[in-house]
């Protein structure tokens, strides 16, 4: 098993341990109200939210109420329900745009892990033999540019940076021109973290988009919202507002190597249907995985990992 896979497994299994503990029926017993309540609570504890947890449990009730089912069976059933919701939105981030570069704008609230995710994406594209350029568009936070530059060095890609406190939109424009002139395949633009209820800061993102469109009406080709797995139901507000104002086209969830289960992704998939591109499972450059609905659902429900994967 490769290194990142082990990491994901340990990360996700830790995530699901709690869910397992919440259920914990060894022998096959009747699926009754008490058990369904326990399942619902376990799902709420995994951040699926009250409504989605309720719906999953209701479907379980409709299909299997009164039947004998053991722990593994319950988990598998829960996983199947969740995977059905997630499967349509699992879409990896692919480099397809012509003429190049494909411009990827990365947005999110403060501390969600944008800069690290950009480094990971850059690393992955480099491994796929694409040429990559990064734009240090977080001109607000102290040393954010320095942070991206260090990642750029590690990933072996060029970083376009401006002065701290400078204009993020202008920098994005310059980076786009530079990437185009050089024939770079992928340009990834970092942005400063911002809470979605700050009008002024959200306006700024809209401006970055407008400025990019001056060079190509189709840019940015992807606008990726980075969500922190530890975030609760507020992630839904984030998706909604960033989608409406910054035109988010896809999601990445970070920090799934802890005990946070990121169940809010299920709710997000139900409500918004935005593609989920990848998940972050560690601090290293290789710790980014394409989003796999069945795997994520199994981990969420605590189904033991298949070794042949």
């Amino acid at each position, binding site marked *: 098993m490769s290194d990142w896979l082990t990491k994901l497994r340990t990360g996700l299994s*830790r995530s699901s341990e*709690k869910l397992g503990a919440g259920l914990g029926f060894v022998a096959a017993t009747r699926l009754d109200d008490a058990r369904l309540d326990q399942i619902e*609570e376990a799902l*709420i*504890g*995994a*951040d699926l*939210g*009250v409504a989605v947890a309720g719906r999953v449990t209701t479907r379980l009730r409709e299909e299997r109420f009164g039947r004998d089912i053991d722990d593994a069976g319950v988990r598998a059933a829960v996983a199947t329900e969740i995977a059905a919701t997630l499967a349509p939105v699992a879409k990896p981030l692919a480099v397809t745009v012509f003429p190049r570069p494909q411009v990827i704008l990365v947005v999110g*609230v*403060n*501390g*969600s*892990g944008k800069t690290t995710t950009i480094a990971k994406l850059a690393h992955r594209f480099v491994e796929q033999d694409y040429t990559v350029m990064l734009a240090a568009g977080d001109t*607000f*936070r*102290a*040393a*954010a540019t*320095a*942070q991206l*530059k*260090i*990642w750029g060095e590690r990933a072996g890609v060029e970083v376009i940076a401006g002065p*701290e406190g400078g204009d993020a939109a202008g920098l994005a424009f310059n980076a786009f021109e530079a990437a185009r002139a050089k024939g770079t395949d992928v340009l990834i633009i970092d942005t400063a973290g911002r*809470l*979605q*209820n*700050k*009008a*002024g800061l*959200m*306006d700024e993102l*809209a401006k970055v988009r407008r400025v990019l469109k001056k060079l190509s009406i189709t840019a940015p080709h992807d606008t990726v919202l980075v969500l*922190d*797995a*530890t*975030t*609760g*139901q*507020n*992630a839904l*507000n984030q998706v909604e*507002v960033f989608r*409406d*104002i910054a*035109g988010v086209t896809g999601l990445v969830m970070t*920090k799934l*190597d*802890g*005990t*946070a*289960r990121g169940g*809010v992704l299920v709710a997000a998939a139900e409500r918004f249907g935005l593609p989920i591109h990848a998940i972050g499972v560690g*601090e290293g450059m290789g710790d980014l995985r394409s989003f796999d609905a069945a795997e994520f659902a199994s981990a969420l429900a605590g189904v033991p990992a298949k070794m042949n994967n």
Partner: protein
Amino acid sequence: MRSPALYYLERPRLFDSLSDRLSGVFDKLRGRGALTELDVRAAMREVRIALLEADVALPVVKTFIDDVTTRAIGHEVIRSVTPGQQVVKIVSDALVEMLGSEAVELNLGVTPPAVIMLVGLQGSGKTTTCAKIAKRLAEKQGKKVLMASLDVARPAAQEQLRILGEQTKVATLPIVPGQQPVEIAIRARQAAKLQGFDVLMLDTAGRLHVDDALMGEMQAVAREGAPNEILLVVDALTGQDAVNVATAFGSQVALTGVVLTRLDGDARGGAALSMRSVTGKPIKFAGTGEKLDALEAFDPQRVAGRILGMGDVVGLVERAAEVFEQEAAEKMAAKMAKGQFDMEDLRTQLGQMKKMGGLGAIANMIPGVAQAKKAMANGQVDDRILGRMEAVICSMTPKERGKPEIITAKRRIRIAKGAGTTVQEVNKVLKMHQEMAGAMKKLRKMGGMKGMAAMLGKMGGGPGMGGGGGMPDIQKMLGSGGMPPGFDKFKR
């Protein structure tokens, strides 16, 4: 795509939706003459859902609901004359208990240097919080503070703290490349002692609570750094994982308190409600913005008041006091004492309102202005109005601003052109000024600023948790639409 400014007003703020949900349940309870046990249980189910949707940790919710239900179905309650009111009071009291009843300050009363260590997950906001606390201690308490970053994991993290040190004019420990966290902690302690610093702030790397190696390192730092305060920094947007995080950190080091960050977001604030129960430690500070002075002492009573729909009047007044430039405030007070209020004053006020976070933020803190909030949410009033009104005033001559009554129809046309707007808009501003001037006169009759303070005192001191906010006077002043005087003119 929609106007971002509208979003700003439409989005609920922290605690808003929890507050709305609870008041819905409370209204139902209050409206009933008699209550059965079933009624109470049904209400509690709704409270449970409200809390869970607000991301309050499941174990905390369960204990809370069990406790409250037991108390609420007690015989005295159900048989009392006002059972609904009683149940509401029980829930309210329990919420206040959940948050902790008193504000707790940092313990700095030790032989200097007092050491404050910050711990938490990646991205929870430790470094920014470190600088904010340092700035606060330096500026408000006159402490000599040294900050040291022990974050050797995240690229440029030490550099970030150094820059923040420059911005806040707080000393930072010189960076020695390659040095490990424990060594840095020891060096920082020595430096703080030798150079006579009062407080040493240790900013540590973000770490996952399941990372044994890093948790071990944190313990070693805690041993060597011998902190008086170990503060867990938690993002207010955190979901159910908050319990795991708090428990894990609490079991590894002796936490003394919690700092909640991003309280300026629109999360429903469950983490704020869970933290006290889970860690058993008080929330000491709340981060409320990206600026380095956006840090507030956490007052559980006030937060409880906001959740329970009583508004945060104290917060509003404090905020106003911070934002108002002393001089401008004094000038205005002097004028108001005479019952004068000209266009310049209106402009100053608009500026202050903007600084305080706009209409939304203000409305949020005033009790019982649900109407105003709804009007804004419907897009009838938005923050851009403030800008437009300023433009109108700026297009007046100083003479016109001092004596608005000289503004004739011809002048109105000129002003409208100057501000890039219509005469109607100019008229609205003039009308608003008139009404505000009127309100000022009323205020003066009520005893001026002192009268206002007295009213606020009444409000804060009252026990009426179930009362749903008092201050009828202010509401009257706000005018029929429940909006600040004159703002109803701007409905679209």
